[in-house]
């Protein structure tokens, strides 16, 4: 199990690509075979399959092989790690804004007193 920082690195790197996000959006509706994830099959198809490998290494999708067909399924757990990280940053920032609010109100009251 990679440590938390490494996990976040893989996660955000995987998400920083429009093709991979399109795949995740499709998989959020249910599992799909590679042939359902990308059409048409130009010479770009082998490169496309590498995008799926990146998603799988980041733990965002899991694949299984039935006969010759590999089916991909989305894994929600790693997204939770990203969500937790973002949530933490948001809270720090909002906390700071709240403090600023309070401080500004105090200043305003002092001013109107004087």
């Amino acid at each position: 199990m990679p440590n938390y920082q490494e996990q976040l690195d893989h996660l955000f790197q995987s998400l920083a690509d429009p093709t991979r996000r399109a795949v995740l959006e499709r998989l959020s509706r249910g599992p799909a075979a590679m042939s359902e994830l990308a059409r048409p099959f130009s010479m770009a198809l082998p490169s496309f399959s590498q995008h799926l490998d990146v998603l799988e290494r980041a733990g965002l999708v899991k694949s299984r092989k039935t006969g010759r067909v590999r089916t991909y399924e989305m894994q929600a757990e790693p997204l939770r790690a990203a969500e937790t990280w973002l949530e933490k940053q948001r809270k720090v920032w909002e906390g700071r804004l709240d403090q600023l609010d309070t401080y500004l109100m105090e200043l305003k009251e002092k001013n109107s007193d004087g």
Partner: protein
Amino acid sequence: MAKLPTHQPDAALDLQFERVVDVPKELVWRAWTMPEHVKKWFTPAPWKTVECEIDLRPGGLFRTVMESPEGERFPNLGCYLEIVPNERLVWTNAMKPGFRPVGDPAACPGVSFSFTGVISLASEGAGTRYTALVMHADPASRQKHEDMGFRDGWGAALDQLVALAKTF
């Protein structure tokens, strides 16, 4: 003299791949139009083209089957639009053979789009200026194809074509 192409490249909609290769255009043409040759270079390794059928005339069939390293097969059906031997080859996957339109690719979720491919060949010294123009319906489709790995894929395939043509 050959007629000028009827299409105009549009940078917002098209992907273009151009390279000068050191094999004569007649050999590049052969590699693109004979099934036994197409099977040897068309798909970047370790993927393979395991089947190929060509009916070289406007409206004719261009069918390939790609196979992943795991043995999964991806059939690919297209229709030739224009054939100028040793100079220009135009086909599309937006039509089936006989010019029959295929359904709306947007109906298929995921990464999907249709395209028209134009391969142009011009002699340059002892070699060939090879231009692959891939036309799309809208900027989003162009982007999808580029992000999917257009340049890597078409570049790797051309390397394989050149290596093969040198054995002719």
